[in-house]
């Protein structure tokens, strides 16, 4: 199972964090700081896997963003790389040619997409089409309510 997912920029700013285990806030901050430091200090030539405490960190860099997942010992690291890639594809499909700004300004949508893809640390939906469709349908429901609320009242 995935313990947590972190997205951070090359300057070390955290863009997204999703935790599938319960930890106190202070711990989370400490862990984030530690991991950002470890990963930013690795150069191009090193492998994408890091042994950290009793978890394995799998990270991949897309343009200016680092995607980092922490998985348990018995999980398949190569598959986790695929999971990260699949998430990026979903974002791309939804936003259309996604870039870091999209994630910064629409972070709640990024979270929604992540929630459609992974629940409780496990992958739930492997079909790209259905995942994005589910988000779009929910968006439609949401908009309907908003539009309704924005209608001028007499």
């Amino acid at each position, binding site marked *: 199972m995935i313990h947590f997912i972190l997205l951070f920029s090359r300057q070390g700013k955290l863009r997204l964090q999703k935790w599938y285990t319960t930890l106190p806030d202070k711990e989370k901050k400490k862990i984030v700081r530690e991991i950002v430091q470890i990963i930013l200090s690795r150069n191009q030539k*090193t492998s994408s896997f*890091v042994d950290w405490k009793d978890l394995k960190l799998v990270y991949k860099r897309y343009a200016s963003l680092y995607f980092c997942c922490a998985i348990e010992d018995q999980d*398949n690291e*190569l598959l986790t790389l*695929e999971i990260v*890639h699949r998430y990026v594809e979903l974002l791309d499909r939804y936003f259309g040619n996604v870039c870091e700004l999209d994630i910064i300004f629409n972070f709640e949508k990024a979270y929604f997409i992540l929630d459609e893809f992974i629940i*409780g640390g496990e992958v739930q939906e*492997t*079909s790209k*089409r259905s995942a994005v469709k589910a988000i779009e349908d929910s968006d439609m429901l949401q908009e309907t309510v908003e539009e309704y609320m924005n209608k001028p009242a007499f």
Partner: protein
Amino acid sequence: RIGYLGAMLLLDERQDVHLLMTNCIKNDLNHSTQYVQGLALCTLGCMGSSEMCRDLAGEVEKLLKTSNSYLRKKAALCAVHVIRKVPELMEMFLPLVPQLVRILKNLIMSGYSPEHDVSGISDPFLQVRILRLLRILGRNDDDSSEAMNDILAQVATNTETSKNVGNAILYETVLTIMDIKSESGLRVLAINILGRFLLNNDKNIRYVALTSLLKTVQTDHNAVQRHRSTIVDCLKDLDVSIKRRAMELSFALVNGNNVRGMMKELLYFLDSCEPEFKADCASGIFLAAEKYAPSKRWHIDTVMRVLTMAGSYVRDDAVPSLIQLITNSVEMHAYTVQRLYKAILGDYSQQPLVQVAAWCIGEYGDLLVSGQCEEEPPIQVTEDEVLDILESILISNMSASVTRGYALTAIMKLSTRFTCNVNRVKKVVSIYSSSIDVELQQRAVEYNALFKKYDHMRPALLERMPVMEKVTINGPTEIVQSNGETESAVLETKPPPSGLQPVSQVMETDLRLFSTAYQTTLLTTANSKLEMVSLLLLCLFAFSGIPSITAYNKNGLKIDFTFERSNTNPSVTLITIQASNSTELDMTDFVFQAAVPKTFQLQLLSPSSSVIPAFNSGTITQVIKVLNPQKQQLRMRIKLTYNHKGSAIQDLAEVNNFPSQSWQ
């Protein structure tokens, strides 16, 4: 939506607010819109606490059975989370398992589906999941393992390896093959796949391959040997984690045939690797050399190369074992001491190297000076030069306190080995009797005393150390050999008649001090041992009525322990053992040895004799001193060896029934 998002991100089980959410989630789980239900399930799956899970498990189960596949998926994952949190609820979800398994088995045979694929490989996530499930199912079950063999072979051969996805699936397949009870052909296939991975340029794949090979090397040793050269090449990789794994794997692969070649590579690696590896690498090399050394000379050469290359990273406990190794290879003494002397001639900053060298020079200095070496052209060394080196070690700022101790003892030993420099030794020893370092001072004072009052005994005391037996007992215990052997050998030169009792007692005192000095050199235990001995000799022991116990009673041999606590040092317990023999024949050559856990220190004094007469007509007594600074429960392992009815008998036993007053 935003609400649930906020809840998931900001709240966790520790907040009280989330309890209020339970009702909210419950309502939403029964909402008509599937998306709302989905949201609720998602939230519950990500951050539900155990109380929440208990309350809502029923609803989740209901949703698991709906026909809506979108919801079913979410419910299933939510159920996984619930089970993780509250394992007792697993029974509720169990009946659904066979159904799920059947569905999965069908899926694996079905055709392609474009929206699920990644670069031409159909739904890798699902494939890997299924493989994992197969692994768990087949772990201990022969039948299911057989059924899986075909499909595993098919997957292994048909999957494309050009993309990462294919490799991910192959990796999972390999892991599964290793775990289930597969046939050997399949295992060889798996290891070949791993070998192919190793040749791949992608670091991730190499990393993964090395990790799995490490896991399999125990069981499929021969197959992994074939890839040995590739693994050794990985030692030269730039990536730190790959190097570490390659190093561990190389150590696991060393065996009698390839030890010379591997050792060369490993020594080269030791030279060039990062400092954090050096300690592990050095220990690994020592272990491997010990197990597979083709000849003593090679072993000693290797050991010395390690010492010179990575001397300061060698672990402290390696020094005594090295010394023991050197003593055991009797014919190599001259060669060894010559090599060591040359090594420290230029540079004596590497402490373990200097310690070993100092000890050897002390023991075998006469061989060095007389130039007896056969293996190498002997070098011309005079006694003065040797003493010069030892003195400079003593003076140097770089030497640790322990090293200085070694050097001083070595100089002392040389006083008997060398013929013309006794005065020089005396001078050095008396300088250090006022040294600030307590350990050095104590040793110097004792050696001084030896010169002044017991000069006639000096040669006998400073004799060469006998070859040491390595006694290993399982578990984290410290071994102290019975003092009986060294002391009885020396005492024989002056058998104590009853009239000279006080003199011999003082002698025994000095001897004990001296032999513990040897043992502190060899066993690197704390210096407090010497202080403890002197303390003990001076204090009185009050009889405090601690009950005695029978520690051992087998085959007619009975050993009783009686206890006394020291008045002046509450961590010290004095145990007097009495061994008696109820059979009809004497037990001869009786040796009692004891070992205690690491937090204790043990000292055995000499036994009253080594023969236990038959029919309980006499006993052997021996005193054991135990130092227990942490006041932990006293435990002891004892080893008894004796001759009885013409055969040698050995026995190991554990003593656990110490009364609490003996250690509290």
